[in-house]
């Protein structure tokens, strides 16, 4: 076992020693090995790099790091070659020898692997010059590309755990809380509650032990920043938690993480062990007399367990049902003891505040939303990935400048924020600044940071129905308005999508939505109607098209569309006939094909197979 660090000064010495071991001029290949890139087959490329480095006897001369998620998931597999930060995207196994030969050893840039700007058509050499990265402010997420998540030495070498040394070495617990209050940090999990106030209330509450918990039950479909932080920089989350525990006076911590995130579970488990070995977690941390230990609890795949009291129930080994909130978790939370629950990203912001100062932090962002926020920019967008931006940036900048706009030149329709609790924001509001309060004003919310872009081929009634179906399945069933109300609203939407809607349905949906929100104990029911209410507010014409004209303008709702062949475009290639499961699409070779509407089940196979855009959906 390694020797424990016994004082903040000793920690600082270790940091500078580790930093000194790194030669900044030495070439280093950093490959993204986040879940997204691994799904592209990055493991084989990693193996190939290792073989190649070994075969050429370059160990010791060329560093190779498998890092966490870099964020630009659209362009994986990707490597960044330091110290110049040359950025290669969509690389393959066969590119590996050439990268080492030409770029690492020969200082030569390989043109074809560079990112090509879709607007200027120019190849871009350096990572920071790529517009996707250039417009971001990567304070929390930026270290992901620099360190191996499984190496505490890497984290220490970039100054990790300095904030912990500073807090324990020279700040009283109340001073730490005051710094977080002054920084105006707000909860990144969705609620946006001021973090410092929560800490203060937990510190002042009566009861022993006190718990701090990290909420990593990232259930929002379309959001994965918490996973990428836990995978890519687990020590930053851990450091935040230890500082929080010190400030609050807590001796026990939990990390509640989705079991669907195996790499995150693995990396955070390892991080805790490493921190324990060095005496950063456990008894008498840094010789201060303060003791704190952390356990990991894996979730069971229930969305509602992201809600505080349901999460506590789950950690206690029970079904995850929320309870009424007139008693705050800060007074009676887990096992009825004072509990401070914060989200992964919130914890990861804490070391920054302590390290660089509350005033520095409060200088970033808007009046009441400080710092940065990580969004997962997904859906119909050119540059899919994780983006970290200062609060107050506009939606337009995110979608167009960072995201690169909508693929295939299609028309932007809406951006959905806040997951199933949020809403769809139309083009008219694209210039709104993004912060907690502005998004709420638009009828949506910040949520955990999912940002799903939709184009003119997405039906807003279908999207509303999608979220209700999701919530219907995830409602724990405790409150009747949520359990039964969401079901009924979904049935009404189902009917509208079938072409059997009535105009009064829109009023029914609105008052039912209000009743569900009012009659539910937790935020799942409380915000469930949002996707329906915002789509009615901003896209009423689409609902009316379904109800009055029996048409789905986006061509999504099966009952309201028909498939046909455009005789002008059809070349008679038989691609559609070959894939049609019901023999509805037929035709002789080199003759115009037809689709028999009576046989067609509208599965979309012919549309997908046609290379000539000849299948029309109307």
């Amino acid at each position, binding site marked *: 076992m390694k020797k424990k660090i016994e004082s903040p000064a000793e920690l600082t010495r270790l940091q500078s020693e580790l930093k000194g071991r790194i030669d900044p001029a030495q070439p280093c290949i950093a490959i993204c090995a986040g879940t997204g890139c691994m799904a592209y087959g990055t493991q084989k490329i990693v193996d190939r790099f290792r073989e190649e480095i070994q075969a050429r006897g370059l160990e010791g001369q060329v560093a190779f790091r498998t890092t966490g998620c870099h964020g630009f998931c659209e362009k994986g597999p990707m490597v960044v070659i330091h110290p110049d930060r040359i950025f290669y995207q969509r690389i393959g196994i066969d590119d590996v020898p050439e990268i080492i030969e030409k770029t690492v050893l020969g200082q030569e840039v390989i043109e074809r692997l560079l990112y090509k700007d879709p607007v200027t058509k120019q190849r871009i050499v350096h990572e920071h010059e790529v517009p996707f990265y250039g417009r971001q402010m990567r304070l929390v997420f930026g270290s992901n590309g620099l360190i191996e998540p499984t190496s505490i030495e890497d984290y220490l070498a970039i100054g990790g755990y300095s904030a912990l040394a500073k807090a324990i070495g020279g700040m009283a617990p109340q001073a730490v809380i005051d710094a977080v209050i002054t920084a105006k940090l707000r909860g990144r999990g969705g609620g946006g509650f001021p973090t410092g106030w929560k800490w203060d209330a937990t510190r002042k509450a009566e009861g022993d032990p006190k718990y701090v918990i990290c909420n990593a039950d990232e259930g929002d479909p*379309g959001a994965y920043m918490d996973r990428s932080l836990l995978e890519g920089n687990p020590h930053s989350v851990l450091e935040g938690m230890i500082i929080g525990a010190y400030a609050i006076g807590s001796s026990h911590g939990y990390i509640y993480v989705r*079991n669907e995130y195996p790499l995150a579970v693995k990396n955070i488990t390892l991080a805790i062990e490493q921190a324990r070995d060095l005496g950063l977690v456990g008894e008498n941390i840094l010789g201060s007399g303060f003791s704190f230990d952390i356990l990991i*609890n894996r979730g069971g795949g229930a969305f509602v367990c992201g809600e505080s009291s349901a999460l506590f129930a789950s950690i206690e080994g029970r079904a995850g049902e929320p309870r009424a909130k007139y008693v705050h978790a800060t007074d009676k939370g887990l096992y009825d003891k004072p509990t401070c629950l914060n989200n992964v990203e919130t914890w990861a912001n804490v070391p920054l505040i302590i390290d660089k100062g509350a005033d520095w932090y409060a200088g970033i962002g808007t009046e009441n939303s400080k710092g940065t926020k990580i969004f997962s920019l997904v*859906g119909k967008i050119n540059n899919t990935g994780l983006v970290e931006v200062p609060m107050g940036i506009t939606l337009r900048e995110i979608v167009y400048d960072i995201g690169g706009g909508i693929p295939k030149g299609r028309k932007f329709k809406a951006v959905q924020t806040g997951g199933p609790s949020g809403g769809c924001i139309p083009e008219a509001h694209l210039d709104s600044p993004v912060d907690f309060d502005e998004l709420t004003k638009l009828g949506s919310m910040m949520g955990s940071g999912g940002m799903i872009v939709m184009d003119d081929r997405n039906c807003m009634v279908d999207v509303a129905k999608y979220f209700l179906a999701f919530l219907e399945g995830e409602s724990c069933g405790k409150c009747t308005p949520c359990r039964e109300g969401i079901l009924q609203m979904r049935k009404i939407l189902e009917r509208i999508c079938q072409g059997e809607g009535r105009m009064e349905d829109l009023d029914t949906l609105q008052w039912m939505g209000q009743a569900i929100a009012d009659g539910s104990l937790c935020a799942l029911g409380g915000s469930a109607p949002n996707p329906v209410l915002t789509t009615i507010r901003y896209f009423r014409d689409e609902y009316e098209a379904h109800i009055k004209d029996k048409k789905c303008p986006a061509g999504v709702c099966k009952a309201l569309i028909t498939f046909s062949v455009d005789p002008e475009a059809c070349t008679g290639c038989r691609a559609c006939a070959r894939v049609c*499961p019901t023999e509805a699409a037929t035709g002789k070779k080199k003759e115009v094909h037809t689709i028999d509407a009576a046989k067609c089940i509208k599965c979309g196979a012919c549309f997908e197979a046609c290379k000539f855009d000849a299948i029309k959906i109307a």
Partner: protein
Amino acid sequence: MEAKIAEIVSKYQSNPGFLVPILQDVQKAFNYLPREALQEVGTQLKVPISRIFEVATFYKAFSLTPRGRHQMHLCVGTACHVRGAAMIGDGIERVLEIKAGETTADLEFTFETVNCLGACALGPVLVVDEEYHGQMTLAKANKILNKLGKKVVSDEEED
């Protein structure tokens, strides 16, 4: 079975607070949660069987029936949904003749939908026996099924 469960339970210091992770490990060991295994967990943790069933039926990750040799998980997170995951799900259900969440009678395939795998850039994503397949299409899904031994009926005539 008793020994295996004792091994899992002791990993969590017989702490009933870790019931959910314990059941996850049990499911991993037996492919599903057999009734006898749940009873054994209850005995060893000194937790009533009713509580164990409450938890085993509440959380989505648990299955009380045997699962297929091949596990197919289709991501239906929002990003995958807006890129047409529903259409692919319909296609797989049609070919396997089961609904999402079910297992084929020959215990070859289990098809499930999952909420979000966080691989949104690759959407729609289909995970087959823990291997990720991105940018899924109906044609690609059929090819995968074919490879796993499920003959997909299609009009293959040569003309």
